[in-house]
């Protein structure tokens, strides 16, 4: 159900994503992340089109960390920042971070060892139902995504929404 991808550019970094629906304790989970008890990024899945979007954000975060060019204070806040089309950090958290009342959450970890312990720890904390990460596409709020990333109609005719989103994420430093 989870998805683990080893970053090709950073072979000692793996990215693991888990998706939960019917979450009842989002506020508590957020508190755990603040306190460092959950060492991962908690993301609002309605702003995600596809798990690939998270991989793009995670790869860029690890690269920025390596180059000493992070814009935020941790690898996990950097992932959330990278998802956003703008350079406004608080806006990125508001849109892409998990909020207290959310009933679904996507969790991202970056690790170098086997993920089984991470999975077990997180599953024990979440009161909710884990579903395959690919189901994130069924939670997407298309209207909100299109508006936030300013996707044009012409663009939608020639490419997918995921293409549009990924291009803006990759290009945001120079826009």
């Amino acid at each position, binding site marked *: 159900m989870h998805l683990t991808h080893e970053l090709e550019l950073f072979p000692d970094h793996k990215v693991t994503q888990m998706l939960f629906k019917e979450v009842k304790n989002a506020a508590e989970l957020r508190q755990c992340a603040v306190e460092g008890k959950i060492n991962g990024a908690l993301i609002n899945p309605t702003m995600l089109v596809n798990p*690939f979007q998270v991989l793009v954000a995670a790869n860029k975060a690890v690269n920025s960390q390596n180059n000493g060019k992070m814009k935020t204070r941790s690898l996990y806040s950097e992932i959330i920042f990278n998802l956003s089309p703008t350079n406004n950090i608080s806006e990125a958290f508001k849109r892409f971070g998990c909020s207290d009342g959310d009933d679904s959450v996507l969790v991202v970890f970056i690790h170098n060892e086997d993920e089984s312990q991470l999975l077990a720890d997180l599953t024990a904390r979440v009161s909710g139902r884990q579903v395959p990460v690919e189901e994130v596409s069924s939670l997407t709020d298309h209207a909100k995504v299109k508006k936030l990333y300013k996707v044009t109609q012409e663009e939608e005719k020639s490419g997918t929404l995921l293409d549009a989103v990924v291009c803006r994420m*990759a290009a945001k430093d120079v826009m």
Partner: protein
Amino acid sequence: MALEKSMAAIPEFLSKAELLKQGAEARVYRATFLGRPTIVKERFRKQYRHPLLDEKLTHRRTVQEVRSVLRCRRAGISVPVVYFVDYSSHSIFLEEIVGSSTVRDHIASSPPSARCEGLEPLAERVGQVLARMHDEDVIHGDLTTSNMLLRCGPEDGVSELFLIDFGLSYISALPEDKGVDLYVLEKAFLSTHPHTEALFQRLLKSYAAASKKSSAVIKKLEEVRLRGRKRSMVG
């Protein structure tokens, strides 16, 4: 130490990738990135340039390429998706247009007898796409039939035309710049594909019909042609 090692991540990755092309300014590789077939374009240092100037120029080209790709996408022009850009190694990671071939190969492989009629729809498509690109004020800077890819559609047989390699591109609204862009293509087109004057005329005709601002551009093209001819007579 740690920093030096991590900064080498991309060169290290590329050293194991498949080298497609070694150009004067950049190397083009094929690799798998985030699980997807990817083309990586890495601009490298030119030894004869001053290091600071070199860095600045290389950075600017990378930025321009990314900006033009996004601008084209917004206008609905098919260009490869940018997945990732690393400004320290000047590398751009782009979607590989899988199963595509260049327009150059497509024209070269069609029988000479069909070189005009059979290829007319393609020439018209190219003219339309370039018109849309110029209407967005994107100047490609290196238009050739190798920088256009054709990918066959799933079943309907309609192929999709992609523009690639925006490394020399820039933004300009000047008819002169657009005229020169077309002139560069004309020279490349006619020298790569002999006896295709009529075909290229079709391309220009469809450009003129599709672009809102074509008359000034075509006029500039004619001027540039004349200048080019005079220069070659003198030189």
